[in-house]
């Protein structure tokens, strides 16, 4: 009988332990370890999106230059795929969606806008 009780205590401890590890400790550790990397990819992706907004329709009369410009922004946009991949990994180890989102918002608010288009301003 005491043996059965011992086993029961171990099982309950294990279940509680696993619960704590999976739902508390791992997400916190995962977020801490990957915070910098995730912030970097979020920043890169945000910059890439902003660049696409500016250059997506082309900016010169030269077709070839516009084509190469769009190619380079598409390469830059690969950072958004990395963001998605890392985000999915973080979610899969239990990091909550809201905490990821708040980290993203923090980065986006810190990312400076692309510098003011002085040329167009002067022309205007």
């Amino acid at each position, binding site marked *: 009988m005491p043996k059965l009780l011992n086993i029961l205590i171990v099982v309950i401890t294990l279940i509680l332990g696993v619960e704590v590890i999976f739902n508390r400790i791992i997400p916190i550790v995962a977020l801490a*370890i990957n915070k910098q990397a995730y912030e970097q990819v979020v920043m890169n992706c945000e910059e890439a999106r902003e660049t696409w907004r500016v250059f997506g329709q082309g900016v010169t009369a030269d077709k070839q230059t516009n084509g190469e410009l769009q190619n380079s922004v598409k390469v830059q946009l690969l950072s958004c795929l990395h963001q998605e991949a890392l985000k999915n990994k973080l979610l899969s180890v239990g990091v909550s969606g809201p905490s990821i989102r708040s980290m993203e918002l923090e980065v986006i608010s810190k990312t400076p806008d692309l510098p003011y288009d002085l040329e167009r301003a002067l022309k205007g």
Partner: protein
Amino acid sequence: MSYKSYLAIPVSLGVAIVVWFVLSLGWPDATPSTQIDRDLAKAIKQFNLQPLEVRRFEADPKYKLGQALFFDPVLSGPRDVSCSTCHLLQYGTSDGLSQSIGVHGVGLSPERRLIKPVRQHPRHALNLWNRDNNAVRALFWDGRIEILNSERRIFGSPLGKDLPPGLENILAVQALFPLVTTEEMLGEVDDRSATDLPKEHAGLLNELVTNDPSMSETSRMEAPLRLLMTRLLGAGSMIEWQERYRVLFHNAYRSKNIFTVADLANAIAHFEEMAFATRDSAWDRYLSGRSSMLSDDEKRGALIFYGKGRCAVCHSGPLFSDFKYHSIGVFGVRAYSADMPEDFGRWNATHEEEDRYKFRTPPLRNVTKTSPYFHDGSEPSLRAAIIRHFDPLEKATKYNPDGSFAINIRQINAVSPVLVPSIRLSEKETGSLLSFLSALDYQPTNVEDIVPKSVPSGLPIGQP
């Protein structure tokens, strides 16, 4: 069951959890090596990049003639400079000077200096790598030599329709112009060769320049070329070194008895094609499928080059140039000519207002060896040259000491919109970009096949 047995279960579970954690998340590195390769593969596909195709090296008789002509100072008016004076292998076929010094100079580049108060060549010497590639559409900083129709071999140049017939390619067309440019190789009418040269060359007057004010601009260019052929091959009687040239011409063009300046230019071009080809850069090997040829830093640099750096927008194609004209906000402070206080770049060739301040995109193979940078050689280091691209309108809000604008509205409007808005790269990213550019380097291994020990004229070749 012992106490240790009870502990074995949670410990094993803990280890399993840690292993699972590491496997599922990976180490906290934003771009592990395999991911960089995957990204680079996408960039390579996006830009349709291929390894550079280069002709096999062969020192045929035409190469031998071109080599002699390239290194022989007898081609210059005062017999003191050759093509190799401003295109040295040690400096990536440029010369290490901001602005080249042709005739009227002493010393070897980059210590070369002018000894006569004459106008200096206004631009930095361009390198010569891979100029036989089909991607090459124009030569010189302002593209004044360009291909108008490659199949029919029609070229645009300052000589217009008076270009000598029989020129095989754009490189041959280009080879003619330093020969007829006063501050490059032609010199002035009162120039004399040095007295300490071999006796058949010592103290001779520069007979290549005809000081006839009634001559047209094209005649002014044609006459020195005709006179140069006479100098090289003799008129009637020949001296020993001229005989050596005649043999070289005969060997190179076996079906001919009369040789023209086009034959001379074609031979120089052939030599340049063979000698100055980047045959085996790390980047080309990577493109051939050998991913270990680039370090992770070089690969990161490549991704920046083709991505957020926007470098590949203009530095595109196998030679890393679109051979088009852009302004990146480098406005030289030196006058282009007596009647032109600034260098207007492409405008000099077209006189189109939209071309003002634009320069041909320089190709980037061996770029680490061709400092200083830009058309005016104003940037001594490659890192500084890269950084200068990031904010071409930096001076737009600044003033000169006299209160005038640092750059004017025409200059502002000329700046390529590709660089506006400006590019933000960290120190580390700029470093990676530099690493990538060094992966484009190639040093010929057969230097002894390129630089001769002597030239037919017997003149010193002035190589370090």
